[in-house]
Every structure is written in structure tokens, then in C-alpha cells.
């Protein structure tokens, strides 16, 4: 192994230019350059061959008509034009996905914050509750969990029965265009455990003295929440919001399983990624699917950028120099 060490600098006489270069401050001489790139090799290969390269190719394909069997045919903005003017199912998938993101993300974050605040005490059995609430986050994306969900919300399933007991008669949720998406939203909210754990870690960092001082000054629970907890927690809310939104835009398995693989009743569960899969891997319209993927990328980038921009208005950092 010692042979791999960087050799000591040669002592032989060197030209003036080289001397000047050597005299630069030590920090600028990247001593471990070759080793660093040895460590980075797998990641660099992946970044070039499986990320950047395919991104360039898919951008090109998005301007073509491509079925995998014949070579791509350039059609300019044809795919994008068709998407927004001639494809009702595409627009439906956009609508379904936007509703899903706009409803499930705020709901999930609210529930996870409330439960995190409930658990932010020193009582016993805290660990048990935390673990129990976290469990669905690990199972949520699986086919098995989605199958269970489908059964729970079917006609005559437990959810129907319980609601009927309270006098609210609902149709079979998964077969009704009005209710089907709601059942998928609830599946998303059921997995509130992951953001909850992150909120809990954030809550623990808020000094108890702040609350005590405010309470002595006569601030009630709601005011303390509004003026202490929320601002102090805003970086964590910000992080969870970005992560959950990105996640929600790409939801697939629940929509596929609960919608029976075809988008559900009247395409009520036709999520964006589900339609992309259909277009790309069942109809082999790979150019169109690539164009769809790029629109998704742009939308996620815009949403993330908006959240980042508005963050200045509502995210507070303890120490201004600590901003990232």
C-alpha cells in the first residue's frame, strides 16, 4: 500500500515559473487529487453513464417520435404541443397529480407536526409510540400495503362499514371517481411517520426556556405555538415540505395498485407517473414519455425554486451566518 503514497516533491533545480507555483499557500496544492478520483470513480461513472448522459439523450428524445424499434424522428415541439392541446388523458393526469400534491402534502405535514408535538414530552413509552407511528412509512410504498388499502376501502370493506355505522353511507371508495383519489391521499397521510420523526428532532432543539419565559409573560399555548414553535421550527418545516412535495409528485405504486393498473374509475387515479409508464412501456411512445419526464422535471424544479425563494420570508435561522 505504501507505494501508492504521493511521492515527495523532487529536490532537483526547477524553473522560476515552477518555483512560483510551488510557493502557493499549502491549501491550494491538492495533494490527494489522484486518490480522491480513485474513490470517486464508481460515482463518476454512474453520474456520466447513468445520469448526465441519459439526461442529454432524454432531452433529445423529447423532441422526437421514438418507438424503440425504428430510429428517432425529429418533430420539434410536437410532443409538448400535443400534451397540452390534444391529449385529454395527459391533462387529466396533471390534474390528478396536482390535487394529490396540494391535498396530501399539507395534510401529511399537519398531522406529522401535531403528533410530533404530542410526543415531545418526557413521558414513558414515548419510544414505543414513536416506533409505532413510524412503521407505516416503511411499508407505505409497497404493493402489499396498497393491496390492503384497496380492500379496506372497497364496497363492504371496513371503512364503508364504520362510516355506515355513523350514518354516512359511501359507495365503494376505490370504484367511485369521487372517492378513489381520496383513498390514495389517505394512504399518503397514513405514512406521516417519516416527517414526524424529523419534526420531533427539530422540536427537541427548541430551548425550553423560551416557552417558560413566554408563559411567565402570560402567553397562552396558541400564542407560544405561533410565535415560538413555528418560527423556531421553520427550517425543518421547509425541509419536510420540499422533500414531501418532490416525493408526492412521483407517487406511483398506490395509484397503480388501487387504480387496478389502469388509472382507476374514469381515470380518477391516473397519476402523472402512471400515465408516463403507460405511454412509454405499454404504447412504446418513448419520445412522448421523455417529453413528459422533462415537463415533470421542470415543474418540480419550479416548485422547489418557489419554495426556496419564499423561504426568505418565512424560514428563520437562529444565527444568520448559519444560513445554507
Amino acid at each position, binding site marked *: 500500500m505504501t507505494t501508492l503514497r504521493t511521492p515527495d516533491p523532487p529536490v532537483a533545480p526547477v524553473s522560476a515559473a515552477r518555483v512560483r507555483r510551488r510557493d502557493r499557500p499549502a491549501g491550494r496544492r491538492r495533494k490527494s487529487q489522484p486518490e480522491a478520483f480513485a474513490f470517486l470513480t*464508481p460515482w463518476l461513472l454512474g453520474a456520466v453513464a447513468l445520469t448526465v448522459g441519459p439526461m442529454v439523450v*432524454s432531452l433529445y428524445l423529447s423532441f422526437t417520435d421514438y418507438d424503440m424499434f425504428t430510429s428517432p424522428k425529429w418533430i420539434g415541439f410536437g410532443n409538448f404541443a400535443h400534451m397540452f392541446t390534444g391529449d385529454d388523458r395527459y391533462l387529466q393526469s396533471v390534474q390528478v397529480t396536482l390535487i394529490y400534491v396540494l391535498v396530501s402534502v399539507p395534510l401529511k405535514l399537519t398531522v406529522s407536526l401535531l403528533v410530533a408535538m404530542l410526543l415531545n414530552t418526557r*413521558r414513558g413509552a414515548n419510544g414505543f409510540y414513536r416506533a409505532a407511528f413510524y412503521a407505516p412509512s416503511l411499508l407505505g410504498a409497497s404493493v402489499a400495503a396498497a393491496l390492503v388499502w384497496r380492500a379496506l376501502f372497497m364496497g363492504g370493506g371496513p371503512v364503508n362499514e364504520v362510516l355506515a355505522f355513523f350514518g354516512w353511507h359511501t359507495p365503494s371508495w376505490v370504484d367511485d371517481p369521487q372517492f378513489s383519489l381520496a383513498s390514495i391521499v389517505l394512504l399518503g397521510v397514513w405514512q406521516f411517520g417519516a416527517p414526524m*420523526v424529523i419534526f420531533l428532532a427539530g422540536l427537541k432543539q427548541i430551548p425550553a426556556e423560551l416557552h417558560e419565559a413566554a408563559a411567565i409573560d402570560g402567553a397562552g399555548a396558541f400564542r407560544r405555538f405561533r410565535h415560538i414553535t413555528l418560527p423556531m421550527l421553520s427550517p425543518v418545516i421547509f425541509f419536510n415540505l420540499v422533500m414531501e412535495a418532490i416525493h408526492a409528485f412521483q407517487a406511483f405504486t398506490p395509484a397503480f395498485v388501487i387504480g387496478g393498473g389502469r388509472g382507476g374509475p374514469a381515470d380518477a387515479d391516473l397519476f402523472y407517473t402512471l400515465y408516463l409508464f403507460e405511454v412509454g412501456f405499454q404504447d412504446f411512445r418513448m419520445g412522448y414519455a421523455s417529453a413528459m419526464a422533462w415537463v415533470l422535471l421542470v415543474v418540480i424544479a419550479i416548485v422547489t425554486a418557489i419554495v426556496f425563494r419564499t423561504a426568505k420570508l418565512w424560514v428563520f435561522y437562529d444565527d444568520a451566518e448559519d444560513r445554507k
Partner: protein
Amino acid sequence: MTVLPRTARSFGWHVLCLVIVAVVLYPLVWLAFASVKPPDEILSRLALLPSRFVFDGYTKGWEGAADVGFGRFFLNSFLVAGLSVAANVLSCSLAAFAFARLKFRFRGALFAFMITTLMLPYHVTLIPQYVIFQQAGLVNTFVPLILPKLLATEAFFVFLIVQFMRGIPRELDEAAIIDGCSVYRTFWHVVLPLSKPALVTTSIFTFIWTWNDFFTQMVYLNDTEKFTVPLGLRLFVDTSSESNFGAMFAMSALALVPIVLFFLAFQRLLVEGVSTSGLKG
């Protein structure tokens, strides 16, 4: 706020928490009991407990579908998930060590790029990747599922390990270098052993996410022989008649067993891994 006696408030708190536990865990308990109910009771009776225990679902489900037994699906899933774990831990920790500990040209730019790929929807690279694997004759093998992990394309884990390695005192590897250790030995004998918690977190999450992954496996695997557990479960959906419900829920229950076991074994680590990966940074 009305002031209640401590014990009363504590009691109320526990009741509230237990109600949430009941709601959250209900679907899983329901599944466990549904898997041993007679088929006609699964949807028609609200009661959680079956009138009699029937294990037909397990025997019928285990026979699988299209002449391939469910054991095969489990074997395939374990193979894919196991290799993914090994590949991911190795490649991600190599890249993370470079980012966290070494100086090199373009480090800032490459790190920023790595963070950006965290937000990149998988679908953007999906189709060209598929074409590449298709032309290499690798569709319908496990290679497209594992190779990306060997090449550290899951930026989340690189980031997670970087964050952890940054917390290891620098004096340790500096001392090792002064003592004549090469960078490689320092990585292998000093930094890697100290990063064990991050590596374990990476392993657990890689296993669970690969086990649950449905989209990629559906895209790349065509032969029933090659199917993994999620694809096997989907076969039951396609032939969704009431008579198959028993088998479907029995196999769904089995599919969740490895995750539940992992969860019970590593629950503390998992929960802490999530909270630290989210906060520092």
C-alpha cells in the same frame, strides 16, 4: 388552560396516543387476520377475528401463479435486495469519503451536482437507461436493478454518509496519515469502521426500499421466473376474483414480514437515521 392533576393529564395523553396507535396499526392487524380468514369472510364480515382459522391462503398462495412458486419470487427479491445493499454501501461510502475527507479540484461543483441529483425525478433518466440496457441485452436480468447501485446513483445515501463522516474527528485520520498510513488504509481502517452507524442505516434503507420497489422491477423484468415479490403480488391483482383473496392477503402478509423483522430489530437506528439525515446539512 385548565390545570388538571398530573396523573389525569398523563392518563389522557396515553389514551390519545393509544387511539392513534390503533388507527395507524389497524391496516396491518387487519391484514394479519384477513390472511387466516375463510375467503368469504374477508370482505363480508367486519369482525377482525375470523370465525375459524383457515390457512388455505398460505398453501394456495405459496404455489404462486403461472407455474412459478412464490418461493421463487422471495428468492429473487432476496437476491436483488442483498446485492443492492452490498453494492450501495460500497460505492456510496467510497464517494462519501472523497467528498467528506479529501481535497480535490471541482469538489464544490461535484458535491453541488450530487445534491442536485437528489431532486432529479427518476423518470428523466429512465427511458435512455432502459434503451442502454435493452441494447446491451440486459433487460429481463437483475443487472439493471443492481448496476446503478454499484455506481452510487442513489445520492441520498452518499449524502447521508458524507454528513456522518464529517462528524468524525479529523485528528484521527490526520494522525493515521502522519503515522504513514496511505489514504486508502485510512479509509478502510479508520474512517469506515467509525462510520458503522451510517453504513447500517444505509443498508437497512437500501434493503427496505429495494424490497418495496415496484416500478423499476416491473419495467425491467418480464419473465415470471425472474419476478420479485411485488411483481408476484401483482399477479393476484390481475386475476382479482374473490376466490383469490385468501392467497393474495396471505402472500401480502408474508411480503411484509422481512420489513417488519428489520424494523423490530433496528427500530431505534432507523428512526434516528431519519432524523439526523434530515436535520444536519
